[in-house]
């Protein structure tokens, strides 16, 4: 039966076809997601209400969406930076944990003068994330060890390290809960902007997006990134600094993920807890791929995913749906988009006669 069809790779996919497959894939994905939600007991009107009106067209909901957007934008950029060069950083959560640990270390032991404290926390979070990704980077570039598994396994190691600290030296003496002592307001906390819980971290996320966009489109580094991402062998043959480009992008990726950990602990939780970095790895991949690694695209997609997160919080409260629901919906949409691309990449012909 499969012999009835033949496929021809298209040399170039026309823009209208690309758009058509994207819209078709997205519609299919959204339809499937709706089916999943309805099967889980959410009525259709509630689903539309929660996922569209509340999160984007309601002042309270939109503030929540923007708050969720801050770490999502940073992890989306982190994933885009590395995966564009075929370095599969699927350890974003691990880098967030280590970033949050080092930031908490600065906050807990009051390192540096108060006016410099937040800056120091930022720097240490970025350093933490970069260090955590440096290990897989060295292993891959020097010894050819597959980075998919190493980045992922180091996430588990980082999380156990967090638990070791939270059930040990950093356990909050006042409450006995496995959470670090609260950060000092005004000194170690990112200030609120007066709109819901939105905090200064939003400037960090937007700034990172714009700087990354400038780097990618205006600088020599961006040109190297494009060349290495398109074809590393050809780039090497042309004398471009391939290894240095990969190292630079990967370290930046880890740093961005570390800062994403920081904006959660310093902007939302005000302490290190066991719940800050759960589920971000897959979201980062979804954002990077839907945005096709474009920095500004990452910001836009992160805002939409932020809406999904906000709606997910509501579903958790009113329908007892677990946070895994969000992951499920994201996976359905990304798979639909991916499969739809097939119809753009190939011309599908039907054989009149099956050759013998």
């Amino acid at each position, binding site marked *: 039966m*499969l012999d009835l069809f*033949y*496929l*021809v*790779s298209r040399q170039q996919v026309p823009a209208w076809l690309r758009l058509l497959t994207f819209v078709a894939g997205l519609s299919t994905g959204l339809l499937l997601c709706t089916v*999943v939600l309805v099967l*889980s007991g959410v009525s259709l009107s509630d689903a539309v209400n929660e996922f569209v009106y509340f999160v984007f067209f309601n002042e309270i909901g939109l503030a929540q969406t923007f708050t969720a957007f801050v770490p999502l934008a940073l992890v989306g950029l982190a994933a885009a930076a590395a995966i564009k060069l075929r370095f*599969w950083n*699927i350890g974003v959560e691990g880098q967030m944990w280590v970033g949050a640990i080092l930031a908490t270390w600065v906050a807990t032991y009051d390192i540096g003068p108060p006016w410099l404290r937040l800056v120091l926390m930022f720097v240490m979070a970025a350093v933490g994330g970069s260090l955590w990704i440096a290990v897989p980077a060295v*292993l891959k570039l020097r*010894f*050819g*060890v*597959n980075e*998919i*598994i*190493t980045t*992922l*396994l*180091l996430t*588990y*190691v980082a999380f*156990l*390290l967090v*638990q*070791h600290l939270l*059930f*040990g030296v950093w356990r909050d003496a006042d409450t006995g809960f496995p959470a670090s002592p609260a950060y000092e307001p005004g000194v170690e906390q990112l200030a609120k902007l007066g709109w819901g819980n939105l905090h200064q971290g939003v400037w960090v996320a937007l700034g990172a997006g714009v700087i990354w966009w400038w780097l990618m489109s205006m600088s020599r580094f961006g040109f190297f990134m494009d060349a290495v991402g398109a074809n590393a062998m050809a780039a090497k043959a042309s004398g471009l600094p391939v290894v240095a480009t990969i190292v630079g992008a990967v370290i930046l990726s880890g740093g961005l993920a570390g800062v994403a950990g920081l904006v959660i602990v310093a902007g939302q939780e005000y302490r290190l807890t066991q719940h800050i970095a759960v589920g971000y790895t*897959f979201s980062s*991949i979804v954002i990077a*791929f839907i945005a096709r690694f474009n920095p500004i695209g990452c910001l836009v997609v992160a805002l939409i995913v932020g809406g999904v997160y906000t709606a997910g919080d509501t579903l958790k409260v009113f329908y*007892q*749906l*677990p*946070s*895994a*629901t*969000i*992951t*499920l*919906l*994201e*996976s*359905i949409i*990304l*798979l639909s988009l*991916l*499969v739809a*691309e*097939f119809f753009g*990449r*190939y011309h599908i012909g039907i054989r009149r006669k099956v050759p013998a």
Partner: protein
Amino acid sequence: MDTFILNWLISVPLFAAPLLIACLGVIVTARAGVLNLGVEGIMALSAAAGVVSVLQGGSLWWALAVAVLCGMLLSAVFGIATVVFKTDQVLSGLIIVAMGEGLSGVLGRGFTHRPITGFESVDFGFLHDLPWVGPIVFGQDILVYVTVLLVALTGYGVHKTFTGLRLRAVGENPSTADTAGVNVTIYRLGAVIIGGALCGFAGAYLSLSAGQVWVEHMVAGRGWIAIALAIFARWMPWRAVVGALIFGGTEAIIPRIQATGADVPVYFLMMLPYLLTLAVLIIPAITSRGSQDDTPAALLTNYLREDRH
């Protein structure tokens, strides 16, 4: 000290079996040139499905069947995406991880932390009373013996049968296999689904036998360790046994040490399996760089007949 070692050895198969079965699933799939990174998600879904079936009044064997079927269905999604629609294998695998974990969370809500009576150890009569050998070899649950059978079957199937030869040909050089009349699509889809069934079995083992409960995130990276194990075993079923015993032994020693009440940092102890996995990936890469590569040559590449040259 003797009882410590004995108790440890008795519990090794409990930890080794799920890793081994999942690893077999990865190997069968990879031999056809497809790397299914979705193992972690498939195991999560099957682990949840097994416990939900039992709590709904099904028998243990029925629950096992449901779990295996779930593994096959989820891997079929992966297979259709990668083999038919030529999507990127790595990205599709990561999507399957998310999908499996998401489905398990949605499906298993309301069924977490509810203990079940799982598979009991098999009664071998007087054999169980033999010193040392008795409790270690003849004191395991039935699925451990099924696992041994599965290893033998997989090893034989992949290396000694014509179907296995065609399977490996598809993984090494699909266009040659195609020219020789092997249906690459069918073989790849078949391998993905059989691999999914094995991963489903592994997930069911975790919840129906080892844990006897369903808790979210209970797979805890074992799917990824199984993939690392397959690389370590150089894609050979019998070598996976050695690896699984080493890993199972490491995992099994953690609760034993905790039981002695010794003052060791618990969370560092729990890092051991992950650090060991890193070590087995790193050490061969450092010591024998480029000497011998048993990886199926067409692994991670999608086959398109019209692109053949």
